[in-house]
């Protein structure tokens, strides 16, 4: 099979500030976009494709209007927090088939301050509205978490396996000056913290922030004229999952994770043992454990031991969530963009907690309540 033309990420940036930021969701998205364009010395006039999604379905038009972009390619695919990875995948396909040349994938969300965007609320006649919300589900921390007790029991683990994920990622966060939660914490500190939804305590649930991020995507050929070292998109995958968390075929493993991951590895021509660094979307401490198994980075049932043995930690053989993750760094509602940013930083050698010898990084994100997933395998080298 002939590989499609190589597509690269040439510009990347997050918003100047994260946390509580005096900007609307649109303002965060355009702040990140302008910084990403500046990063690769391009201007809006160079951009001919725009991808962004949120709860406003017309977001690409707002971004294009605001920045003065005349887009001939638009993607507003919205399947939750992995959407920006789908945008990257769609952009790569569009660029490699000549539909457009330079795509801006951007994201901004006033997730803490709720400025300038609608709030997600399924209608009372939707499936969620009929079969989940009447039972008092209170957002992601009561839905993403539903299968965790079954997961732990099936794998012979207990709640300390969730706490270990937090402790390990907090050590990474301590090296990231922008991380919100940076204080050291131990297993007991995590387990004894206030409960959010048993078995989950507060440190096992992500922070909530205002933030944004953007990437500029173009062909490897075009990248040669640009200042930053290109990050090559080796392979991507996307997948839909069960429409309701409670209806997953197996609540301890995401079929969407498995299919998105397999597609990305297949496209890249790589196997899990080729991955040097992984960013695994962590709205809760349980999700990275599931992702480790579902992506084949460890065999099913071995994620808890893999983390407990230090393999994802500083000095480990597969550093995971090196920005501190959504648990500690930032999470404005759709975290996939921030996972992607850290993969890019590690491949460029400019991460706050930079690790050595990163040739290949994997970014994986969940959408909704395991309703979708996307995986991207990136490299500093073209193949």
């Amino acid at each position, binding site marked *: 099979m002939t590989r499609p033309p190589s597509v690269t990420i040439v510009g990347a940036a997050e918003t100047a500030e994260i946390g509580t930021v005096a900007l609307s969701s649109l303002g965060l998205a355009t702040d990140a976009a302008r910084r990403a364009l500046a990063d690769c010395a391009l201007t809006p006039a160079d951009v001919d494709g725009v991808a962004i999604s949120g709860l406003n379905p017309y977001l690409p038009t707002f971004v294009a209007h605001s920045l003065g972009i005349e887009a001939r390619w638009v993607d507003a695919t919205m399947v939750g927090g992995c959407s920006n990875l789908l945008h990257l995948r769609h952009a790569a396909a569009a660029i490699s088939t000549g539909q457009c040349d330079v795509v801006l994938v951007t994201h901004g969300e006033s997730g803490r301050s709720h400025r300038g965007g609608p709030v997600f609320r399924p209608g009372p006649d939707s499936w969620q509205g*009929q079969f989940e919300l009447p039972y008092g589900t209170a957002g992601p921390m009561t839905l993403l978490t539903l299968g965790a007790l079954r997961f732990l029991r099936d794998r012979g683990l207990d709640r300390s396996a969730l706490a270990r994920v937090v402790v390990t990622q907090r050590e990474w966060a301590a090296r990231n000056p922008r991380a919100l939660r940076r204080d050291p914490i131990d297993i007991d500190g995590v387990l004894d913290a206030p409960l959010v939804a048993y078995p989950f305590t507060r440190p096992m649930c992500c922070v909530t922030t205002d933030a944004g991020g953007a990437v500029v995507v173009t062909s490897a050929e075009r990248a040669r004229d640009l200042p930053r070292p290109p990050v090559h998109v080796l392979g991507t995958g996307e997948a839909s999952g069960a429409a309701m968390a409670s209806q997953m075929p197996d609540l301890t493993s995401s079929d969407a994770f498995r299919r998105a991951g397999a597609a990305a590895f297949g496209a890249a021509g790589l196997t899990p043992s080729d991955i040097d660094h992984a960013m695994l979307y962590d709205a809760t401490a349980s999700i990275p454990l599931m992702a480790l198994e579902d992506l084949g980075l460890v065999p099913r049932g071995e994620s808890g031991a893999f983390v407990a043995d230090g393999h994802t930690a500083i000095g480990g053989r597969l550093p995971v969530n090196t920005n501190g993750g959504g648990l500690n760094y930032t999470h404005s509602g759709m975290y996939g963009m921030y996972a992607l940013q850290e993969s890019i930083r590690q491949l460029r050698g400019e991460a706050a907690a930079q690790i050595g010898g990163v040739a290949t990084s994997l970014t994986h994100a969940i959408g909704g309540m395991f309703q979708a997933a996307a995986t991207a395998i990136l490299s500093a080298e073209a193949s």
Partner: protein
Amino acid sequence: MTTATPGRPLPVPTPETQHFWEGTALGELRLQRCRACATTYFPPQAFCPACSADDIELVQSSGRGSLYSYVITHLAAPGFDASYVIAVVELDEGPRLLTNIVGVEPDPDALPLDLPVEVVYDLVGQITLPMFRPRTP
């Protein structure tokens, strides 16, 4: 058992789910079964999610099942008082439902996985919600 708390989200049936909510009002937990491939499924829809056949019959669940997984939420949704159990129950017929476990303290020691449970019906406003309680042999 009747509870009606202001602000609590309540289901609004659609044509595809009307039979389900009419059933709960009568004390029946109605599932659907595909006559072509014998799949019993939930949530309600007019054709089989496994094989797309539209030769579908209504079947009444025994209302018996087991506790598949759960959380005890300390975040309270509108109209609820924390803490309470949000659970996934696996019915003996196969499908799983998200529900509340009632009639038991929201305490992990009282809620081992695979605990046998049975349906109870809770009239909330104008609609009857199926919930589950521990089943005594």
